[in-house]
């Protein structure tokens, strides 16, 4: 491993000043960064360890009915916070469907947003990758790419964003609170992650030194708590990234959909908010036929980036299943297999 400077700042301004230098990176839970460093995928000159910064590990209920989650709150702590899980059950389900218990104990909210793609070519330092070395080319194109993007990809990059957590968050209009050299600003999660275009190395809205200090959920986000689910198709039922996933929240009155939220995971370089599908759902009958139409709309622009056409059909089906599950109502207890399709059908065994 290459030598690097290790800095443990005492305050957020100190952290930002230290991380604004070229070659610097923040360290929080380290569940992704340390692996990347050991594999030689990234070689920062300077590690700014923010894990002991005060006040970033709090979950705060705001007077306006919203919620503010500190960037250093651990995934496990958030998912197991009873009030949080009750208000945002799909977010809790997404968190618990990700990684392993050990990783969730270490991984942070801010780090989850900033985790890197699991494209195996990004990790294969022997070959080119436009994310690692801009302009070197994309090896995933024409390679082993059955799990790659079907929406929003470019010829420069077909990688996906791996987060589960971000999928219900983007559906619920989460906002990222960022502190930088010029003060504090708010960016919606939908705008926070970028599609690859010609610059896949630019993955988000952060500028040098910028620190994610919190994620906010607006008041309305809790209004879906009775009808919200996150479901995930994966190659094994724990410790696996999504092949495709979906988060849905519904508000239904008299059989008609009053409001709907829908987002997809595992399909693009960002958590994919399906606004056009939400428009289809709005005011329509809450039934499978409507959900199928919404799924078609959500995937209307999808195209395979390689050997992955099957993901488009899988994504349609996970959208329908997730909306059906949301319509059936949030289970009283989080399923024993969080986000598994095997716990999605009404009456499905939760002890499977």
């Amino acid at each position, binding site marked *: *491993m*290459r*030598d690097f400077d290790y800095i443990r700042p005492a305050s957020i301004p100190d952290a930002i000043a230290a991380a604004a230098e070229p070659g610097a990176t923040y360290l929080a839970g380290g569940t992704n960064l340390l692996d990347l460093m050991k594999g*030689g995928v990234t070689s920062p000159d300077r590690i700014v360890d923010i894990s002991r910064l005060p006040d970033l590990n709090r979950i705060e209920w705001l007077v306006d009915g919203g919620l503010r989650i500190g960037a250093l709150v651990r995934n496990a702590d958030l998912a197991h916070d009873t009030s949080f899980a009750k208000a945002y059950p799909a977010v809790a389900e997404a968190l618990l469907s990700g990684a392993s218990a050990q990783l969730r104990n270490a991984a942070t909210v801010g780090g989850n947003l900033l985790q890197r793609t699991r494209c*195996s*070519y990004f*990790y*294969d330092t*022997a*070959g080119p990758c436009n994310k690692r070395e801009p302009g070197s080319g994309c*090896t995933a194109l*024409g*390679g*082993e790419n059955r799990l790659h993007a079907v929406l929003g990809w470019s010829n420069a990059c077909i990688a996906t964003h791996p987060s589960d957590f971000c999928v219900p968050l983007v559906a619920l209009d989460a906002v990222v609170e960022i502190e930088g050299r010029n003060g504090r600003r708010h960016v919606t999660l939908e705008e926070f992650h970028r599609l690859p275009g010609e610059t896949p190395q630019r993955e988000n809205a952060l500028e040098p030194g910028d620190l994610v200090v919190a994620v906010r959920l607006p008041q309305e986000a809790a209004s879906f708590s009775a009808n919200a689910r996150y479901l995930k*198709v*994966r*190659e*094994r*039922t724990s410790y*696996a990234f999504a*092949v495709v996933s979906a988060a849905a929240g519904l508000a239904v009155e008299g059989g008609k959909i009053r409001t709907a939220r829908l987002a997809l995971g595992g399909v693009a370089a960002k958590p994919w908010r399906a606004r056009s599908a939400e428009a289809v759902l709005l005011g329509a009958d809450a039934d499978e036929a409507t959900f199928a139409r919404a799924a078609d709309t959500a995937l209307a622009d999808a195209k395979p980036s390689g050997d992955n056409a*099957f993901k488009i*059909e*899988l994504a349609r*089906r*996970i959208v*329908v*299943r997730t909306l059906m599950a949301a319509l059936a109502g949030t289970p009283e207890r989080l399923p024993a297999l969080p986000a*598994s*399709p*095997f716990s999605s*059908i*009404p*009456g*499905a*065994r939760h002890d*499977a």
Partner: protein
Amino acid sequence: MTLELSLNQQPAHSRQGSSIGQPLTRRDGFLKVTGAARYAADNHPAGMLYAVLAVSSIARGRVASLDIEAAKAYEGVVEVMTPQNRPALAVDPDAKHHPFMFRLDLLQNDKVRYANQTIAVVIAQTLEAATEGAALLSPRYEVQPARVGLDGAKSFVPAAVGVGNPAVQHKGDVAAGLDAAATRIEASYETPAQYHNAMEPHAIVAAWDGDRLSIDTPSQGLAMAQGRIAGLFGIAPDNIHIRSPFLGGGFGSKGMISGPQVLGVLAARLVGRPVKLVLRREQMYGPVGHRAPTRQTLRMGMDGEGKLTAIDHHARTASSTFDDFFEPAADASHSLYASPAIATSHEAVRLDTGTPLFMRAPGEATGSIALESAIDEAAEACGMDPLEFRLKNYAEVEPMTGKPFSSKALRECYAQAAKSFGWADRPVEPRLMRDAEGFLTGWGMGTATFPALMFQAEARAVLRSDGSGLMETGAQDMGQGAWTAFAQIAADGLGLDIDRVEFRAGSSDLPNAGIAGGSGHTATAGMAIHNAGAAVIARLADLATGDERSPLYGAGNAGVLARGGRLYRRDDENRSESYADILTRAGLKEVEGSGKSASDPASQEAYAMHAHGAVFAEVKVDPDFGQIRVTRLVGAFAAGRVINPRLVRSQYYGGMIWGVSFALHEEAITDRRSGRRHQINRLRVKQLEPDAHDQHSSRHQRPEPCARRRAARHAARRAA
């Protein structure tokens, strides 16, 4: 507080009589759960340096340059070993004097023949410095196109498959059998390349003292490893001491000493200091063996009653470009089902990969998944239940050789497992079962078989005047409980309670216990232990029965029983004497005996010897996503005499879990352009994709693993 930990620290096992057959917990369990068990890489002799492999990122070509200066300039780097300065060997690593002598990559030249082949070794003061030194080598290559996949090269018929089996074998007239059949099936199956990747990677700590060599390394065969290293370095095997008390899994990959282990020894020689070398997880894909991919085609013919008239099993597999190991997949059809005509054949291609080797278990795993799936096809073609079809074609003698089985209780396994599972309620037509939640439910079953192998081993037994015993044999415990099972055999062999027996194993200075492989170690080393016990008891009995001061005087050897540390007259158990008294009176501190074991050629000639089992599975399939959950597994096994039922139970579980993993999980992904492994840090798990799923599950109730995308099956069925 100090914790005194040793293998013999046990909760007291107070029992009367035999230790064999008792469900003892692992004697090494306490050491392992407390982290006190010392694995190879836990050793740190004084002055030790760290070695890290630099491995090839290309699959074929040559190393054109390495920036050795940059690596050596890095602080802490002591030396870089390349083909230019690698210490001389007494034997060419590419020499092959017998089939078990596998070629090794020991920096003999600049050629690259697979991805992850070692191209240099960096030795440094710290692991971190060695790792960075290896990265700084920045190799440049002359690249040649990699040959990847079962169609990646021209095929040929190998001289032998597995361990010296003929590649092509037959009995009877398969063509005539197929012609005469009332029903025929033909089915193809692919199995992917798979890698052992045990929890403990291959690791070595090597220290030279003149021409004496001390090694800590995991090995499934200490004497073989000792012999191979001795040959390479031109020293006497006795000059090498290998300690291998614990293995964090072997599965065949630690059967033969591997290239990286020898490179650790070379590195120690080069720098004149002890060196530790541990493979990184991703470096396990290449130089330490794997299970080769296969593509198998089976043709079967059945008469009007569903009896097989012919089995034709053909397998295509792959080996490396530079050595010979061929997965004997088709040989699975030799021993399970009765048929008047059986033909098995193999062809192979040579690919730019590391040499495939033994992986639990070569031929049986890959071959039986194809054979058992084809048997299901045949049963369906005959309109028969899969179990009924298997019973109809039950082999009363070994089908290929006609030899009687030494024992076979497969029928009982089928019956017991079917009953526990509730198989009788299974509908014959596919796709009829759904659970309350709408998931498709499938029931399936398969047969397990493995030859009962035995190799050669030796053991040494000592009885001491304090009434305790010692048993020594260079056996290995890969984690399955050999420390415990062998101690149980030793206790019975010595006529002592297990707590009075010191058992030593896992070291090459002990009697040669052969290889922990082929599921033959307990039988082999266990028999040597038993015989060593009998030998030392006979010596002790001589002392007693020849001494008129002993109550056993005149009893003769045959007239004495050994139990609980005493010898008893067989005809009068009121007359007995303790081991301690016998030895003390004879003025001896201890008495010693040795034992050997080997398979009996006459029995081998006369009998087919196999263990058998039956496994039944219930699988749920999500009809929309093809995602699979295995909800129930029931197995019944006839595996011979059980030394420790607790340990054997976990072996059964392990075998069944390996079967599930084989069916559903494991596939090593290779980039078809570079020949490099991808997804190498994680398991790739397959699911039925919707298109494949619809196509296949319409015909098969069982969501068979072979319906996976990559293991696409092309089962053609025709009725004559």
